[in-house]
Every structure is written in structure tokens, then in C-alpha cells.
């Protein structure tokens, strides 16, 4: 049995990735975070045996530990980990000379969810991941994690948290590559947000919808490469490589 755990799976890209891995024949543990979203329950009806929604708040160590226990009651291994959960909201108050003073607590929250979340999930799931055959860790980052290409002059909270995420993933690779772990950093493209009823918000700048970005991610997430142990790349939904 091939197994995967995906965080932030209530909607959007996370939910679409759950669907992709189910189609590939995986048993999928889908991290659920939002009380008012029931799209995972609907999907569970289609995949009653292989989809397991698990409560997972990646900001909380206790929640990750509890989720790991829940998973371990069903399987002795995880092949794939996908980090999708992210905190993207909040008021616009993270710029120098902005209209509001920079809110320190929200800077912390962004790093706690977007960078430390993935890091602690990997740490806590390691015993299960070590027993998996694939040892594949896929981390959804963002275009705005790239320091080289950053052209915005506004709020930096979300952007900086994704840059911190990238360096954390590099450090994980520095430790875990020798055990056969391989990594993917993915930039999914600009996607519309999904609503509780499953519909997507209108957004003219949207580049791709979540379902197509998840489809584009699969060959990247599942491929094997001779340079896997040595290289870390940020790759987008078109397959192009972003500088860090």
C-alpha cells in the first residue's frame, strides 16, 4: 500500500492534490483544518476506503502529534508528504512606512504556519516516512519566496515566510538526503481561492486553477532524477525553474 499525507486539504490545491494521489492508487491522509468546509467529506464518499481525513493544524505541535498517531493506527509507513497548508490572510500591515505599523505577532504567525508548520510535520512524521519506500517530501512554496525576482514593494509577511520555508527545506535536505529522502519545492501559480460550496472566487490575474496545478504537480512530485540527492530547485506549474 502506497501512502501519502497532505496538509491544508480542505480546499484549493491541497484538496486537488488529494484527488490526484487517490487516482494514483494511494491511501491518502488529508489534513483538515477548516470547520465550515465539507468538500473532503464529499470526496470521502467517493473513496471510502482509501481517503482518511485527519484533523491537522500545522501551527500546533500537539495537533501534528495527534495526527501522526491517527495515521500510525492505520499504516506503519508514509511514502509521500505534501505540505500545502498556508496562512495567507490577515490585514495589510507588514510594510515599512505603511498606513499601519507592522504587526509583529502576525509576522510570527506567518512563519509559524508557513515555514515551521511544514518543518515540524516532517520532523514528527519522520518515523513513518523512514519506513516508506518513496521518501518523497513535496513542499508547496511560492513565486514570492524568490528573493532574486521579488519586485513587489508592499506587504512582506507572506513572502518572507515562504523564503524562510525554502531555507528550512534546504536544511532538511542537508540532513536527510543521505537516508534517501528527496525533495520538491513547488510554485503552483496564481490560483483562485475555493469557497465552502466548492466554487472558486473570481480573480482576473489567475494563471491556473487548482485542479490543473495539481495535475501539473504530479509528474514533478513523482519523478525520479539522478541528481535528486544533490539538488534543490523551486519549480513552477509550467516546469520552469525559479532562482532562490
Amino acid at each position, binding site marked *: 500500500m502506497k501512502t501519502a499525507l497532505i496538509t491544508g486539504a480542505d480546499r484549493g490545491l491541497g484538496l486537488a492534490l488529494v484527488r490526484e494521489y487517490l487516482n494514483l492508487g494511494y491511501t491518502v491522509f488529508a489534513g483538515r483544518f477548516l470547520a465550515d468546509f465539507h468538500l473532503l467529506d464529499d470526496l470521502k464518499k467517493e473513496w471510502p476506503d482509501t481517503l482518511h481525513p485527519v484533523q491537522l493544524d500545522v501551527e500546533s*505541535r500537539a495537533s501534528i502529534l495527534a495526527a501522526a498517531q491517527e495515521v500510525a493506527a492505520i499504516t506503519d509507513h508514509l511514502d509521500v508528504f505534501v505540505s500545502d497548508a498556508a496562512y495567507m490572510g490577515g490585514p495589510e500591515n*507588514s*510594510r*515599512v*512606512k505603511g498606513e499601519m*505599523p*507592522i504587526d*509583529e505577532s502576525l*509576522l*510570527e504567525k506567518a*512563519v*509559524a504556519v508557513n*515555514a*515551521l508548520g511544514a*518543518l*515540524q510535520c*516532517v*520532523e514528527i512524521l*519522520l518515523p513513518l516516512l523512514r519506513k516508506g519506500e518513496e521518501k518523497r517530501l513535496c513542499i508547496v512554496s511560492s513565486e*514570492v*519566496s*524568490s*528573493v*532574486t525576482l*521579488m*519586485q*513587489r*514593494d*508592499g*506587504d*512582506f509577511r507572506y*513572502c*518572507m*515566510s*515562504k*523564503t*524562510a520555508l*525554502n*531555507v*528550512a*527545506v*534546504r*536544511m*532538511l535536505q*542537508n*540532513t*536527510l538526503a543521505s537516508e534517501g529522502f528527496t525533495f520538491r519545492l513547488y510554485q503552483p501559480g496564481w490560483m483562485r481561492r475555493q469557497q465552502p460550496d466548492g466554487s472558486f472566487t473570481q480573480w482576473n490575474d489567475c494563471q491556473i486553477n487548482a485542479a490543473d496545478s495539481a495535475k501539473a504537480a504530479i509528474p514533478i512530485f513523482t519523478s525520479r532524477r539522478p541528481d535528486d540527492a544533490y539538488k*534543490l530547485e523551486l519549480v513552477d506549474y509550467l516546469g520552469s525553474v525559479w*532562482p*532562490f
Partner: protein
Amino acid sequence: MKIYLTSLESAFAKALKNEFVSRGHEVFAGEDLQKLSVIDLFVATENKRLDGDDFTVNDGIKPEIVLESLRYNMIAPIKALEAATNALDASEIKRVCFLSSHKACVTGCEETSGYGYNMAKAALHQALHLTFNRLRPEGYTMRLYDPLEGELPAEVSAFTAAEFFLRSRSYDPDNKENRSDEHNFALYDAKNRHISW
């Protein structure tokens, strides 16, 4: 020049202060900020791997250390800059300087521990790039410097820092708008190596 250092806690910061003073500059630090109506050169000196920031993923991640490091190495320098912008706006020079390390760059990071420091400084890099884009049109210039602490003596590193902070970069008086390295957001180390992100 009126120079403001956010703190004199580290050996590097003390050496940097002495270096500026020996070159005839007026140096202020820490609490002095409220008294200053003009700052020409602002230096955030917070740059430290905290006690306990030595775990690998196998030891177990300590989120509270990472967040403490974020507060010290990223939030404090940014909040200090925020508090100093009025005095910087009043200067003709408007130069802001920050410290970091190649270890916090995804490309060059070879470390397995120091998550707190590396993640905080990586976040700082991106926050500063957005801030640079925001402030450069107002005449601000920025320096981001890796003092190579532990590798070079603090005095040498401070000398190099003073040079890097005080001198302008490829300023072309005939082509001010385009031919200037001041438009590039970049990290240089104490050996004048350009570090890639």
C-alpha cells in the same frame, strides 16, 4: 555623518562603533533614537545564533527557539528601521544597513542546525527586498552584509563593514538613473564576495 546603531551588544557592533568614531562620525546607539531628528546612516546590528539554536531535525525542532530568533534577528531590525524612518527621511543620505549570513541563503546553506538563525535571516532578506523596492525611489540606499563572525576578527570585519556602509557603489554622475550598483539589492560578505540567495 550621524550614524545610528540599534545595539552595541556584539563584539562586532562595538568594533564598528569604534571604527566610525575613529573616522570622525557621530555615533548613537539604542535608546538614543528618540533624541535624533536626523539619521544619515542606520545600522541594525542584531545578528546572533541564539543559545539552544543547535538542533537538527533528528534532535527535534524547537519552534519556540525559531520564533525567538525571528524576533531577535528579523523583527527587531525591521521594527527599528520603522521607528527610524522619520529621522532617515530628514537626511540627504538615507542609508540603511543590515547584517546576515550566507548560511541563510538557500543556495549556499550547508548547515544541518541553526534553523532559528537561518530562517529568521532568510525572512529578513525577503522583507528587506520588498522594503528596498519601497524605499529606493525615495532616495534610500541599502547595505546587507555578512560579517563572517567567528571567521574574521571583529576589528577586521568592522573595518570592511565601515568601508562597505560608507562608500557609494559604482556611482556614475553622468548616468545616475541607470549606472549604479545602488539599484541592486545584494548581500556581500566581509571578503567582498557577492552571495547568491
